[in-house]
């Protein structure tokens, strides 16, 4: 009986784990994933278009030195390191045009390192 009970508990645990992974995968499948590279003094994408309410993952990496990625209207910012993919996950909850920019001073031209995110219904 004790063995049967233990097997049953394990099965429940495995099932719960499976369901959790499936749910997580389903959530990830709904996300929009965007890849961006950063180098002096530009991002590989200067314009982004997203849909309101749809979760997004922005994967950003630097090609030359440390940069920043700051999207203040959504409270999103991160350092962007060379050779490392940094993931920013958020859900746009308002429509309009919003500026993103490098906020780690990177030289003459730093002030022009920016882009525009458009969020549509």
């Amino acid at each position, binding site marked *: 009986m004790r063995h049967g009970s233990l097997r049953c508990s394990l099965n429940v645990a495995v099932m719960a784990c499976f369901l959790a992974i499936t749910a997580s995968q389903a959530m990830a499948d709904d996300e929009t994933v965007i890849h961006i590279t950063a180098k002096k003094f530009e991002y590989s994408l200067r314009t982004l278009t997203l849909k309101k309410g749809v979760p997004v993952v922005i994967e950003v990496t630097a090609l030359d030195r*440390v940069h*920043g990625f*700051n999207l*203040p*209207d959504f409270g999103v910012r991160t*350092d962007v390191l060379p050779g490392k993919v940094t993931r920013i996950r958020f859900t746009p909850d308002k429509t309009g045009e*919003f*500026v993103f*920019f490098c*906020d*780690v*001073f*990177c*030289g*003459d031209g*730093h*002030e*022009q390192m*920016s882009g*525009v995110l458009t969020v549509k219904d």
Partner: protein
Amino acid sequence: MDNKIDRRQFLKLSGLGGVVFASGLSGWANAAKKSEQDEFYFVQLSDTHWGFNGPKVNPDAANTLKKAVAAVNALEQAPDFVVFTGDLTHTTDDPKLRRARMAEFRDIVSALKVKEVRFMPGEHDAALDRGEAYQEFFGKLNYTFDHKGVHFIVLDNVSDPGASLGEAQLAWLKQDLKQMRRDAPIVVLTHRPLFDLYPQWDWATRDGAAAIKLLMPYKNVTVFYGHIHQEHHHQTGHIAHHAAQSLIFPLPAPGSVPKRAPLPWDAEQPYKGIGFRSVEADVKDAYYKIAELPVPKG
């Protein structure tokens, strides 16, 4: 000679005219009772960007700083001191050129006929090497000094390329403020705005709110800064923040256009939007009268 400055005559004395902005709590009502020791004035120069080359926004860049120095020297009454609030030089990746620009800048401003000149870095001077070259030429990145009863605190929010003051400097600020009376006149000098002026253009200091929180218990705090290349006035509670014009090119008003690009040179109105300021301090009332002064066109 009577060195006391009559505020009503101040602009006449300066010989340049300009816009006057008053900042403080109690005004000039008791002006007649003030003694010479209670008043002084200083000049704020900012964002000179020595080494910048961009004929479309300033075809006279090689002469602008020199003209500003001449304009300060032409003031009928010399200020007690001059302060440069950052971006003395325009940034460069080349450490040798950075130092050459700093040496040239230092030579030019050595012509100022004033007893004292104070400096602080901007991100163009200090962010690429965390202030290494700057300190060789101009000394500490953050420091304090006292003048006729006013406690001046110079904060460095630029040598960290991410525009933070940092834990160590905030602890230093906290320790410095501990010695001050709550009603002491305090002036903070810094480069970037300590408050979120317009984060979409990076016109903020990442941990500036922490500095403002430390300053908030003190009744008479005023902040003078640069970075945004235009006159701007803002209050966070009782703390006034005054941004100065640049001495190289003006930038648009926060959020007024999609990009924070320099405003083009206006041949019809050369030097429009470029200038410096005088700050007349009434120590007892912690009151500051600001006059925005132009760079002479000639």
